[in-house]
């Protein structure tokens, strides 16, 4: 069995839950180097996305992910809206017309998502952004699948790489977004965007841990 439409719904639900649980934490991270709204904005967006996808006729994973993306774009605001919106829109485009995702499909969707985020935010690795969690997640997934790892294990390695990438943002000096104006003062703080990106990849590993390769 592969990742079905319902599995993807479970992932979105799991992400919305984990964002709600970490709303204060994300906002606290953001108040150190940004404008103290990341958790609040993401929570508002994911709640709206959950409400939106409830009304969808099940079937096309592409439509499901695009709906999440469009909802985030119009409800999150700030920089998080376009970035997470683009992430899901690109995943949706990669998964268009699919009722289930094979491991290769997920790897491609994640690749497209990261590409979209980089195109939108113009961030390079090391700029202290979402990209610092997403790029390692993408690469670790690819590597694990190439080695023939089953999906659950590949997802676990992907999430672990995202966590390491997130933690590696702590000493970095921000070069994008509002945090960049702090210069050296942005060092010593974990990036809120990298944190919410790690949670996204972690949620996939948790939601799909029982999916067969």
């Amino acid at each position, binding site marked *: 069995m592969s990742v079905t439409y319902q599995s993807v719904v479970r992932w979105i639900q799991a992400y919305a839950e984990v964002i709600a649980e970490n709303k204060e934490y994300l906002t606290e991270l953001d108040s150190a180097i940004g*404008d*103290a*709204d990341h958790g609040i904005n993401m929570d508002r967006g994911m709640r709206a996305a959950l409400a939106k996808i409830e009304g969808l006729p099940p079937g096309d994973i592409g439509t499901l992910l695009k709906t999440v993306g469009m909802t985030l*774009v*119009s*409800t*999150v*605001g*700030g*920089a998080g*809206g*376009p*970035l997470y*919106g*683009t992430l899901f829109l690109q995943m949706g485009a990669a998964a268009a017309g699919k009722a289930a995702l094979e491991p290769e499909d997920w790897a491609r969707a994640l690749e497209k998502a990261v590409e979209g985020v980089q195109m*939108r*935010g113009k961030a390079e690795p090391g700029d202290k952004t979402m990209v610092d969690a997403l790029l390692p997640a993408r690469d670790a997934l690819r590597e694990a699948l190439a080695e023939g790892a089953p999906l659950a294990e590949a997802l676990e390695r992907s999430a672990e790489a995202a966590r390491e990438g997130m933690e590696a943002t702590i000493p970095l*000096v921000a*070069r*994008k*977004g*509002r945090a*960049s*104006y*702090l*210069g050296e003062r942005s060092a010593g703080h974990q990036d809120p965007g990298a944190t919410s990106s790690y949670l996204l990849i972690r949620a996939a590993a948790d939601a799909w841990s029982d999916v067969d390769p």
Partner: protein
Amino acid sequence: MKKLINRPQDVVREELEGIAAAHPDLVRVHFDPNYIVRVDAPVQGKVGLVSGGGSGHEPMHGGFVGIGMLDAACPGEVFTSPTPDQMHEATRAVNGGAGVVHIVKNYTGDVMNFEMAAELARSEGIDVESVLIDDDVAVQDSLYTAGRRGVGATVLAEKIGGAAAEEGRSLKEVADVCRKVDDNARSMGMALTSCTVPAAGKPTFELGPDEIEIGIGIHGEPGRERRKIAPAKEIVEMLATPIVEDLPFKSGDAVLAFVNSMGGTPLIELYIVFNELKKFLDGRGIRIARNLIGPYITSLEMQGCSITLLRLDDDLIRLWDAPVKTAALRWGL
């Protein structure tokens, strides 16, 4: 927090309802998504101008919608970028077939949200040119940051670009004249006090009773330095020196001098600032050919001011003098 509001979560909607009630001769207000549009939009054959940004900077941008300035303004939540659906629908509402210029202040969220809106509009066959405003010299290290912030030059670009569109210039010409304003304008602001975002309920930053922040951003972003309060003459020198040296403005230049209130500073003080600025510029042989003095790009109730200088040529002077009829700027009509 003491504010003339009902509930913090209703501030933007109720402000928009007030604008709709006050200026039905100038604008229509559309809700969900929120945008303010010229009452006669779309004007056939005219390039449309759309701007937007977080609320809390009034009268920018909604107060600049009308004849000779903006065709539409998209207000976000207080100090939060509007979302692409707002700019996308506003763009459709003002497209009179000659294309639409987006005037975007350089903040990461604004840039990305406008970029998505422009992509959506282009996918429907609407020509969109985006102009980025980044005139704040307080940001010194623009190479390793998100770049200079868009502040006072935004007001001037909206007026001058609006006049260019009104006289029938093409999409590219209107966008280019807005870029010319940005290229020839420099700004710097300062704060005497902080401001309080209604939803936050407490001041954005702390400033001691005798402290000021030089180089403040319009969302209370930290500036170049915090120091003790000084006479207006010295504060003007602190703001005007980096502005003049950055472009640089030279002896013989004609400029538009824009002295802006951050929201809480009264006109009596702005005129003192303008007087000091005039003396400062006289000393350097720079001539003030036009001026604008008042609260036009504010930061809620923050006390403080900003100075913007724009180097003028004959074309810019003519476009500045052209008639304008909006809630906040009105002459010649």
